[in-house]
């Protein structure tokens, strides 16, 4: 079970107050109702949310390939999570990785509980996180990766990168034990995905024509609609990570919402000042930055803190995007690293500050057990960040090289890239209007 619930001091008090919660090993219907909903919301984030968000940003000839990648990842990671991923992440194991005790959800029955919700539900809720994380990476290699290579990469990555890191942080592993704060997946989801994206963008190389040829989004209406779905679904992501229908969940969605709003406004206002006009794409990108950044912090900070975190998210991720694209000229095609990676890092560090109970209106709800200062919490967070970045970068690189060997190269050939992946890889076209 996620240890974030154990971390929270007030839980026992709450348990005593509520008669129907008196025994920890009894199913709580209300919490179950909310996590059932949250699970649907997080799935909604990936399909159709993220897939629309991403698909609108590529060129028309690749629109279906992006949808297909998100969809296929959803299916493959679901099966792998059920078969082994959940066990590797949440099986007891050691400080580094779970075990095979829950392979194919062995021992998970309708009546089995995880905390006070069904374990089948906990596994399913976590599955939706395991789905979206590799799906986020799609943005880095869009418009040029072979479908077979993409599929193989995503599957291996889930088991080799995502599952262990999840274990480190939420599954009883070393980072969790150190008291690292990651409410809903700054380390686990956004940093892993962001760093993997950067590595993938470097290994695959830029799209033909980048950065000289213009590659404007083919359908921003699709992207914005998907962004709206992401926002809504994120309530399940962060609010559901409380694993309960209570004030923690409520506060989590409140801070999530405020950070998203501030991120969007900040990004749009920077554009307004800098380029003269605020763009809709800028606003929704800032919103996603705000959401990604608040994610690790969402259960630990208050709304005042969220305001600052959202502001920082918009500012830092905007500049990171410019830097990666214009200075480093890396074709992380849909800006996964500067938005999710940088946002995840920022949020994971910022929680050490805004969890403090001594910041007046910007206060949060305190540090992890046994930690008593911003500095101490910060150093734990920093260790987490560095460890996850290094591990993810190395492992992703190795997996990509391996997959390249197995599939005879990660990219489609130049002519196929020219023609577009929809026809070349899937024999379909997106639009026949």
């Amino acid at each position, binding site marked *: 079970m996620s240890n974030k619930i154990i971390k929270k001091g007030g839980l026992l008090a709450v348990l005593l107050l509520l008669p129907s919660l008196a025994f920890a090993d009894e199913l709580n219907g209300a919490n179950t109702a909310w996590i059932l909903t949250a699970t649907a919301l997080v799935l909604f984030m990936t399909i159709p949310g993220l897939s629309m968000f991403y698909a609108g940003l590529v060129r028309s000839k690749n629109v279906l390939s992006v949808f297909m990648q998100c969809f296929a990842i959803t299916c493959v990671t679901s099966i792998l999570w059920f078969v082994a991923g959940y066990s590797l992440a949440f099986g007891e194991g050691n400080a580094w990785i779970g075990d095979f005790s829950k392979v194919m959800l062995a021992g998970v029955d309708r009546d089995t509980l995880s905390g006070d919700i069904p374990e089948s539900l906990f596994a399913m809720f976590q599955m939706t996180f395991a789905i979206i994380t590799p799906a986020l990476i799609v943005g880095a290699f869009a418009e040029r990766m072979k479908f077979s290579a993409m599929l193989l990469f995503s599957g291996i990555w889930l088991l080799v990168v995502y599952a262990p890191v999840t274990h480190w942080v939420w599954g009883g592993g070393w980072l969790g034990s150190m008291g690292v704060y990651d409410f809903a997946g700054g380390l686990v989801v956004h940093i892993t995905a962001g760093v993997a994206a950067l590595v993938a963008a470097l290994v695959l190389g830029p799209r033909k024509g980048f*950065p000289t040829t*213009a*590659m*404007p*989004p083919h359908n921003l209406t699709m992207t914005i609609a998907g962004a709206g779905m992401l926002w809504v679904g994120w309530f399940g992501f962060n609010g559901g990570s409380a694993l309960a229908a209570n004030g923690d969940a409520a506060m989590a969605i409140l801070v999530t919402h405020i950070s998203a709003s501030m991120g969007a406004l900040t990004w749009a206002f920077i*554009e307004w000042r800098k*380029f003269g*006009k605020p*763009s809709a*794409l*800028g606003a929704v*990108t800032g919103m996603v930055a705000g959401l990604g950044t608040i994610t690790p912090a969402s259960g630990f900070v208050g709304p005042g803190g969220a305001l600052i975190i959202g502001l920082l998210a918009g500012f830092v991720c*905007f500049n990171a*995007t*410019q830097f990666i*694209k*214009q200075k480093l000229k890396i074709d992380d095609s849909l*800006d996964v690293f500067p938005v999710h990676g940088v946002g995840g890092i920022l949020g994971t560090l910022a929680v050490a500050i805004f969890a403090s109970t001594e910041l007046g209106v910007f206060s949060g709800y305190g540090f992890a057990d046994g930690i008593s200062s911003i500095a101490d919490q910060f150093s734990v967070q920093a260790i987490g960040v560095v460890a996850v970045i290094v591990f993810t970068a190395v492992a992703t690189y190795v997996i990509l090289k391996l997959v390249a060997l197995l599939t005879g190269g990660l990219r489609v050939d130049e002519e196929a890239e020219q023609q577009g992946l929809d026809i070349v890889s899937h024999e379909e076209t997106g639009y026949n209007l």
Partner: protein
Amino acid sequence: MKLITAIIKPFKLDDVREGLSDIGVAGVTVTEVKGFGRQRGHTELYRGAEYVVDFLPKVKLEIAVSEEQLDQAIDAIIAAANTGKIGDGKIFVTNLEKVIRIRTGETGNEAL
């Protein structure tokens, strides 16, 4: 017979069509095109990636007319499409050797 090809600003389409109707030209074929010319395009910005759009949406009219109608038709188009601002477009005239109405097989001026 002559074929008039007029490239105009899209929002002038209705005016031009009315202008042509007024002088008795009933048939027009319209295509959405993009024009490059002296009129400057605009810049689009997507997450900081600048993208200069130097083509502009235009509408192309093709109108088959008899020799007699030619000048009148050209005048009507100019009258309706002219805004005095750059990018108003062009009129091209080519010779039509044959015109046939598919439905009836009529040819020449009858077919217009």
